[in-house]
Each structure stands twice: as structure tokens, then as C-alpha cells.
């Protein structure tokens, strides 16, 4: 049996998370097939042909599929799902939205947020916001998995994979929902999900103004993404989608710089697997220091500008 990887697209291009999905799929048995769903996705197809470890690319390119509707995505996946032993997609807002629908219609049990794959039936996943890990066994005939992207390395290399390309017939699509507005934060910064360096701010910044005035120049210097704690988001210092934590984004960049963040459990759950953590806080007892590689106790209003100017 083969593994079906359902890639997430951004506009018409492939998101980089597809490379971590391939690494995850390679830990299972069988060939990897890649499914691309969207409208005017020629760029994504061109990129897919360069991905290592893909034997077959399945494409559905149709005007009805431009808005990532979970009801429609589900029908497309179901039209081929029974050919596969495993179905993999990112544990992102995109993947979490539709994959449980697929699992339900197949009467199979989905495994969410997989952080390790031992073999085709053994997986590890975090529970209680990562406070605990469950090692589990599932032996069903089709296993839908959402993959925590930050827990897997990206597969490297660009080569013509000679994959067979199949355009799928469009199944009957339900008209249950439609997108009527999409407001994305336009930014020249890297995505929080995939950035190598993240500069993140908390309550200690004190104001929205300070958040931007102190952290943006530092992020610019480091070509970093900006993040925030839930406290900072709730106080209006930063928009919702900056939130790193149990209920926000779960990330693992090479370098995470936590500025004025105390380190609530729910925040740590979102960033504690970062390769290197720097914490800057004036409170020497802040919980964030317990997981930081480098702790700097000091006034962020002095430390951050100094750091920015010396980098």
C-alpha cells in the first residue's frame, strides 16, 4: 500500500511543510503519492515535480476548489482514499479542518498532531498541551494522520522525481459553505510557522507601541518572524495569528528569542522544542528561564535596543 500526502498550498505555491510531510511518510512503508487540490496551481505542480521521494502526483485544479473548503476537500480525498494505508497532512489550520471529516467518512480513527512515527502502526503524540506524550498503536486499514511539522526535519534536495502525474476527475461537490472574505496579514517577514528565527514578545513589552518599536528592528536585523504570548495578544499588543502556544502556533525554530514573556505553561507548549531559546526578562524567577538555553535578566527596554544595535 502507498501513503497519500495532502499538501498545503499558499496562493498557488506549495507550502514548505510538504518536505516535512515527506520525511514523516518515509518512516512508513510503501510509495508516497502527493495530492494537490486548488485552482490555478501550476506553480505548485512544477514545485512538486522537484520533490524527492514522490512516486505519483495527483492533481485536481478547478475553479470550485480555490477556497480550501473542508467539505469539498473531503470529497476529493475520499475519491481516492481507499487506495492508501496512510493519509498525511499538516496539523495546521488547513489540515485540522478537513482531515477529521475524511476519517469520519471512512469510519477510521484519525491520529492528531503526530510528533514521531516508529513504524506503520506506532506513533507518538503530545497530550495536555505537550505536558505528556502518548505512545500509541493503531492497526486500522487506513490511518489518517495530521503531522506536527516542527517535529520533523525537511527532506532535502531538488531533483526531477519523474513522478507519474494524474489529473483526477472532479467528484460531486457539496455546496455547504463558501469563503466570503479572507484577510491575511501582509508582511515581508518570514512565516511564523517556518521561520528559522522567531522574536516573540509578551506582557513585559507594556504597550502595542513598544512591542513594535522594540521588536521589529530586532526581527529585521535577524530576518526573523514575530511572535507573541497569549497575554500580549489579549492585551492587543499583537494580532491573533502571532500567538505562540498551546492554542496558537506550535513552532520549533532554530532560535527563539522570548522578550518580556514570563513563560506560562500554555506558552511553553508552543515553543519549548525550539533548538535554541533565549529569554530576556527582568524577573529572575520567570518560568521562561527554566527552559532557556541563554537567560539574560535585565530591562528589555535597554537590552533589546542594545542587542539590535550590536548584531
Amino acid at each position, binding site marked *: 500500500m502507498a501513503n497519500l500526502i495532502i499538501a498545503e498550498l499558499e496562493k498557488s505555491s506549495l507550502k514548505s511543510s510538504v518536505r516535512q510531510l515527506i520525511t514523516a511518510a518515509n518512516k512508513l512503508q510503501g510509495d508516497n503519492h502527493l495530492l494537490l487540490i486548488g485552482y490555478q496551481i501550476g506553480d505548485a505542480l512544477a514545485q512538486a515535480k522537484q520533490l524527492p521521494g514522490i512516486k505519483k502526483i495527483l492533481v485536481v485544479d478547478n475553479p470550485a476548489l480555490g477556497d480550501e473548503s473542508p467539505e469539498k476537500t473531503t470529497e476529493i480525498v475520499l475519491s481516492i482514499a481507499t487506495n492508501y494505508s496512510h493519509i498525511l497532512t499538516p496539523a495546521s489550520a*488547513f489540515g485540522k479542518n478537513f482531515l*477529521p471529516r*475524511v476519517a*469520519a467518512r471512512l469510519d477510521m480513527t484519525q491520529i492528531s498532531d503526530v510528533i514521531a512515527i516508529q513504524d506503520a502502526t*506506532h506513533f507518538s503524540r503530545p497530550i*495536555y498541551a505537550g505536558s505528556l506524550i502518548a505512545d500509541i498503536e493503531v492497526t486500522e486499514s487506513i490511518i489518517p494522520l495530521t503531522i506536527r511539522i516542527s517535529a520533523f526535519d525537511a527532506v532535502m534536495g531538488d531533483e526531477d522525481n519523474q513522478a507519474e502525474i494524474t489529473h483526477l476527475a472532479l467528484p460531486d461537490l457539496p455546496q455547504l459553505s463558501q469563503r*466570503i*472574505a479572507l484577510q491575511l496579514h501582509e508582511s515581508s517577514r518570514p512565516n511564523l510557522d517556518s521561520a528559522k528565527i522567531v522574536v516573540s514578545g509578551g506582557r513585559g513589552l507594556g504597550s502595542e507601541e513598544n512591542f513594535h518599536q522594540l521588536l521589529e528592528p530586532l526581527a529585521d536585523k535577524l530576518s526573523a518572524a514575530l511572535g507573541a504570548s497569549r497575554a500580549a495578544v489579549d492585551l492587543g499588543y499583537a494580532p491573533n495569528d502571532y500567538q505562540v502556544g498551546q492554542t496558537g502556533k506550535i513552532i520549533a525554530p532554530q532560535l527563539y528569542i522570548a522578550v518580556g514573556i514570563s513563560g506560562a505553561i500554555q506558552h511553553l507548549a508552543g515553543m519549548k522544542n525550539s533548538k535554541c531559546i533565549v529569554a530576556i526578562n527582568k524577573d529572575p524567577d520567570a518560568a521562561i528561564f527554566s527552559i532557556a538555553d*541563554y537567560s*539574560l535578566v535585565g530591562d528589555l527596554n535597554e537590552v533589546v535596543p542594545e542587542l539590535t544595535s550590536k548584531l
Partner: protein
Amino acid sequence: MKILVPVKRVLDYNIKPRAKSDGSGVELSGLKMAMNPFDEIALEEAVRLKEKNVATEVIAVSCGQVSSQDILRTALALGADRAILIETDYDLEPLAVAKCLAKLIDKEQPNLVICGKQAIDDDSNQTGQILAALLGWSQATFASKIEVTQDHLDVTREIDGGLETVHVSLPSVVTTDLRLNEPRFATLPNIMKAKKKPLETISAQSLQIDIAPRIRVLKVREPDPRPAGIKVDSVDTLIEKLKTDAKVIG
């Protein structure tokens, strides 16, 4: 409009969860339990829709052991009109919960289900979507705003990189994100009143569906600890360490 709100009894979010010493599961005995925080938000939204005369009835449902009656009483104190416990001793997986709810929905015929986007114990983030699929209904997950029009909802969703607004047909399943609302606290008079509201118990067995677990939990364990870090006394030392030891900046 009739609204069904599924609620789950979970370990109180203030308590640090620990694995049982034999690794067979999570230690829950003797610890404070509470309603899943995302479900509180779902219930609050349903009660507000009733207060605006958009909803006519709010029904809280829980699937689990008889002990889940305590959070159903809380739901009644917070404004649900009646409550139903689907009782079982099984540790239900999302698919099983959704199947129980789908059976109940056949009987109760609500137009809208509002539930939490995930439970803070197993963090699956599946039940709402599964339920919508089993029923053939529309869904709107991770809602931060719900507007009810005649036979549709306009729901603003929190997605990666921003917000999406979807127009979904009713009946529908909506799952709540954190910023949808701030749930109220139960007042003493309402807690007293809740004692008189109806709380019905149905045995899961009587629904005649397969709710046996399909996932075998081999071990629950603590994550690997991070190696201890060091304190740096100046920005210069920090930059030096990041360049030469961690090698994460150029």
C-alpha cells in the same frame, strides 16, 4: 433555533498533568475536574444567542461517566435550558463521541451545534468536524465571530496568517476558538435554579453504536527534558554564545 452544545469533563487547566507511575495513563484520581475551557466558550455563545432571541433552546450534552453530571449542572447554571448525559464507562475517542452525538441529534433535531475546537486533555481537535461529516452538515471551525442570518451563518475563522469568513448553510457545526467571547461565571442564584432544570441520562449502550476504543495507548510519559541552560550577564556575552556555541546566528 435549537442549539446543542457538547461539553467535556477534563482535568482543571490549572493542574499540571502527570503520568501514572506505571505509564498506563494520566493520573486523574482525586484531582479537580472542570468543563473544557473551549466548551465554556461554546456554551457562552449559545446562551448569548438565546438572550438575543436568536436561539429558542440550548441543550448541553456530555458523553462519559456519571461524574460528568457535575459539569452538566454547571452548564445549566451558566444558562443551558436542559442537559443530557450519554453515559458510558468507556474512555471515548472523538469518533465514538461524534457517533453518540449524531444519534442524539437524530432525535433532538437541533439546527446548530456549537462545540469547543478541542479538549485540553487529548488535544485531538476532531469531534466537531467528525460530527459535521457524519451528519452531512457544513462546518466552521476555530470561530472568533458568529453572525446568524436567516438560514445561514457567517463565521469568522482564525486561520494561519489571518482571518477567513465563511458563509455556511444551516444546519451546521461550529467549533470555538479562544477569542469568540469571554464566558461568564455562574452566580449563586443561577446555581440554585440549575438544580431544578432537567438533566436526563441515556445509556450509550442503548444507542446501539460501536464506541469501543480503537487506539491502544502503550505508554503515557513525560517529554524528554531540555538540557539546563546558562545565565549570561551581558548582551555581548549573549551574542558571542549565539555565534560560537549555538551557531544560530552568523
